[in-house]
């Protein structure tokens, strides 16, 4: 009986305490928000292609299988979808629908993202000309999950999403600057 109680207490501590901690962390002010930035040796016009054109986006956003072009044409209200491979779900492909909320080349692009029954989010790209042929790209993303378990896990998801975004931007910088060298 003593051991049943000890094991029961250990299990409760391992489940209840972390759940309470995650609940409290989920109330922080930056919950569900990710921001990352990179400075690239390229003009805003050159960099704009890499965030607007689907074939370019596929090269630096990891796990993107396909990115369809804007429909009917690139402007506020246009739609496009991205197909992404989910390695954590047995390699299943997920379609993320995007609707353009801001379109002001080569400075600002805003896209509302959604996957039914999974999440909704808003992703905005801000390009700032730093002069001397350099541009700062800032990506901001905010999202909300439909499932209660995903909302509970948000404090674990957000840091990983930021890390992923940092990795994608590093890849973007490397691609843009190496292709600029070739020209």
């Amino acid at each position, binding site marked *: 009986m003593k051991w049943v109680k000890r094991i029961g207490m250990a299990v409760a501590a391992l489940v209840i305490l972390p759940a309470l901690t995650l609940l409290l962390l989920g109330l922080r002010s930056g919950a569900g928000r990710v921001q990352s930035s990179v400075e690239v040796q390229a003009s805003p016009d050159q960099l704009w292609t890499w965030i607007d054109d689907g074939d370019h986006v596929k090269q630096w956003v990891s796990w993107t299988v396909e990115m369809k072009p804007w429909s009917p044409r690139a402007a506020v209200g246009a739609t496009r979808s991205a197909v992404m491979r989910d390695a954590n779900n047995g390699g299943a492909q997920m379609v993320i629908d995007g609707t353009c909320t801001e379109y002001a080349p080569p400075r600002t692009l805003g896209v509302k993202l959604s996957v039914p029954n999974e999440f909704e989010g808003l992703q905005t790209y801000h390009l700032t000309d730093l002069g001397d042929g350099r541009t700062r790209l800032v990506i901001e993303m905010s999202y909300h*999950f439909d499932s209660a378990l995903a909302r509970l896990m948000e404090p674990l998801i957000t*840091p990983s999403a930021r890390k992923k975004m940092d990795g*994608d931007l590093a890849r973007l910088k490397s691609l843009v600057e190496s292709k600029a060298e070739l020209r």
Partner: protein
Amino acid sequence: MKTYPVPDPPAILRALLLACAGDGHGELIAGDLHEEFLYLCEERGDGVGRRWYASQVVRSLPELLRLRIRSGDLTQLLAVLASVAAPLLLLDRLWCFVYSHIPLKDGLDRAAGLLAVNMAVLCIASAISGALARTARRAATLSLVSAMGVAVALWASVGAAPAWYIAGALLAAPASSLAGYKKWRTQ
């Protein structure tokens, strides 16, 4: 008068017998076989004694394993293996869920913090299992089974496991099991 050294039964076969028969019956059977082995070596020579010993051990294995299952001994080992592997597999599924919900998806690499949680859980599960041992030999067996539980979980996990994590987990499980035995062993 010339004295001859007392022969020892073949060590590998004796170890096999003790491993299959378990702590309870293993020592008694090993003692019986040892007695008869010495008698046969003296009467008919070392070769006959060793062949007889090997024949008895090998032919007895199925009965001894059945006996061990009936006594619940093997069940306890399976329970220890499951109690180490199951939490790790559940955590792996949880981390898959977390990473699957990253809005623009991500791969199978896990943050060091999440692997540290896995490590803590496997140490706790192994320590609890080790505390169930009543003898040092049983503790050694349970520590090996804990390591096997970790190996099963690593093999079945979806998430990527860096080399430091694999090595650390395979060492931490038996170490925690033995530490649990030393600290909390049941009397």
